[in-house]
């Protein structure tokens, strides 16, 4: 009898849920009402989430929802998405002090198609830049980017359909390789934006152009790249 004709035991991609249970128990509050209840909630801090190493164990078929108090880094969202976590929830209210962090989490969640729950109130001047990350049925919006060789293709369907190419080296020098790090604004400009104004006029160079084009937003002395990455696959590399 050849090996490939043998009946398979419940193994990969059906990994052992005991590993998930054990790991979850090590790092956070773990709720699982019954043995056959697929919904599992893991509550822990961001630092513990990374230690959870779910991307290695997978979720073992469990419907794992992760709750964490504050917005998390894009790398953590990627880690959870690759582990096929069913959802991420930010438990503390999102407020002005964590707006840039929220953008990073929300963009990564949209990119990896990881359902994100949160509550709180974004400042009005931020809200109008975040429709694509807070979709509702009455106002579908898409603002995404795709990584190419030396360019980022931006697809903007917030109003009509617009496709543009942006020099990748320029934007990564501002916002990091993943375009998920806020770029500091300097001097007078920072002060000006710190008052909640986002008029691009005082800015010069690339950041101003991006803000003018609606691809970045200034808030409290920092500029945030708005589009989320349009990955062909939710398990994409990087």
């Amino acid at each position, binding site marked *: 009898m050849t090996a490939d004709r043998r*009946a398979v035991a419940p193994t990969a991609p059906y990994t052992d849920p005991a590993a998930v249970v054990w790991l979850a128990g090590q790092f956070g509050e773990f709720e699982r009402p019954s043995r056959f209840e697929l919904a599992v909630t893991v509550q822990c801090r961001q630092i513990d989430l990374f230690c959870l190493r779910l991307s290695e164990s997978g979720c073992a078929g469990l419907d794992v929802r992760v709750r964490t108090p504050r917005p998390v880094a894009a790398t953590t969202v990627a880690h959870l998405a690759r582990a096929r976590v069913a959802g991420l929830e930010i438990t503390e209210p999102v407020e002005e002090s964590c707006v840039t962090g929220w953008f990073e989490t929300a963009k990564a969640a949209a990119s990896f198609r990881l359902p994100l729950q949160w509550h709180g109130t974004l400042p009005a001047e931020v809200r109008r830049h975040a429709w694509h990350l807070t979709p509702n049925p009455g106002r579908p919006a898409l603002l995404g980017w795709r990584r190419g060789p030396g360019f980022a293709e931006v697809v903007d369907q917030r109003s009509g359909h617009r496709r543009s190419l942006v020099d990748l080296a320029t934007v990564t020098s501002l916002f990091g390789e993943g375009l998920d790090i806020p770029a500091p604004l300097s001097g007078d400009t920072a002060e000006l934006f710190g008052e909640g104004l986002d008029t691009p006029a005082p800015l010069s160079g690339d950041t101003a152009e991006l803000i003018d084009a609606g691809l970045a937003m200034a808030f409290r002395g920092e500029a945030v790249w708005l589009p989320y990455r349009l990955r062909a696959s939710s398990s994409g590399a990087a």
Partner: protein
Amino acid sequence: MRVTLVSLPWQTLHWPSSAVSVLDTVFTGVGWEVTQFYGNLLFAEQLLDSASSSGSTGLTPDDYHAICDSGYPHGVGEWIFTSALYHPHWRVEAVREFLAGRGYEHLDAALRLHEMAPSFVDICAERILETEPDLVGLTSTFEQNVPCLAVAAALKRLRPGLRIVMGGANCDGPMGAAIHRNFPQIDLVVRGEGEQPVRELAEALTGQGSLAGVTGLCWRDEHAVCRENPYAATITPGHRIPAATMRPFFDAINASPVRPWVNGLSLRLETSRGCWWGEKRHCTFCGLNGGTMAFRSKPPERAFEEITTAVREFGLLDVMLSDNILDPVYIDTLFPRLTALDWDLRIFYEVKSNLKPADMAALAAAGVTMVQPGIESLSSRVLSIMDKGATGPAQVRSLRLFREHGIEPRWNYLCGFPGEDWERDYTPILRQMPALVHLPPPNGISRIYVDRFAPLFEDRSLGFDGPLRAASWYPLIYDLPSVELNELAYAFEHEQRGIDDRGEARLGAAVETWRRDHAASRLSVAAVESSVVIRDRRVGFEPRDHILDGVAASLYLTLTRHLSIPGLVAAADAARLAVSAGQIERLLREWFDAGLVFEDGGAWVAIAVPA
């Protein structure tokens, strides 16, 4: 010497013409000066002009897209240009009745486009002549015959001495000879793959050879008598398939006012020709490869270079491959390299449906988001009739794996095969279709035509044994006797075979229901410790979690492969599972009743998708 290579309606506006961009490379390679002329784009621009003029036709480039997408099964695009080839209102009442009878939804646009075609053809010919060609090359695939013939006639009216050559898939074999014989405005017809004949033709036209020596060429001698060189399919080896010269198309489309009407602009590349599966077993309905079935592919290194160079040059991440079938070698060579780039590519390939899970993962990681896998049917017997080399459960397994890996398979449910039977081949499938609702549905159903070069055309013993006639739109379009139409045509009709119209309508309705309910349906499977939990959230099924323990859990997971009952018994024995054949049969029946497995022809497969 100067050649102008012309792409006419109804070539899509979304990517360059493969024929024009590849033959540009060939002509350039033998020292000719090449102009690519995108008449299809010019036509769309005229629609845009007319939409904004005082005497607006109400037509826009969207109407161009609509005819491109819907016209071929009814010959609509060809008929539109008969007003330029023959005369305005050519058989208009008969065509109106024909299209209305088929429920063709763009009839009104087609009638208005028909009125516009003559003026477009005149302008197109003038613009082509402005390129000062010594030779004009027209390429024809699907619905480009009549536009080519009309533009050629206009060119001859303006410059009778201009030499015009036509080629493309519509000119393969006897079709090319028929075009040449019946339309004197075409001086030369190249048949089959163009690289070798075009090089020979370029030599002949520069005095280094004779037209009589060009492989497969149709030409006229000094007495205007048609000559037909012996037809021999020339096979360009994989490593010698030229790279496409796409710059002229992208320059033209990017400068065109039509550009905002073209979303989803893509690169058009080829990494192989022919079909390795067809070399072994030729699907009976497929006529795509004409006389050149032999499979050849570019070396993986070259395929990688061509894709990445084009992405860099044109700033486009969408790549449409024209290959008839993916070279399996690329799975371990080309795709890992594309994956490592970390570009957000979206690639289309035609593939064989029997990809392994690891193959699918490799494709998905590299950015293959859409495939045409040749599912065709879910009935093992019908698949056998068409010599597809797959079974119904194997095709369902493929659909499940595509769903699992996030790859969109495009497929049509084909019917009308000789020997198929409603009760035996369709009733059991339709009974199970509601259970498949969470898997990727067909785009629709199609009753097959008998295409030239297909085994069903070549071998009457396969069931189409009565008279074959050119498909019903050909006589409405061409002013030719039926004997010539039968030489010129690619698609043929025959007295209906297989299921009747009522069965076809029932199949169509079932597929529409599948399409309607698909997005809201989920059927997932997860292993929880030693058990399997199947979560059923399909439209039409009561929400339910099925829990399988022990032997049942192992058996269900074993059915991720498609197996017969003896195969499943053997697998259970090998795994030392204490279960009898009778118990297995009872479990399968129970799962079948709950819509958790698919069965056809004695083989079974699990349909829940791993969570």
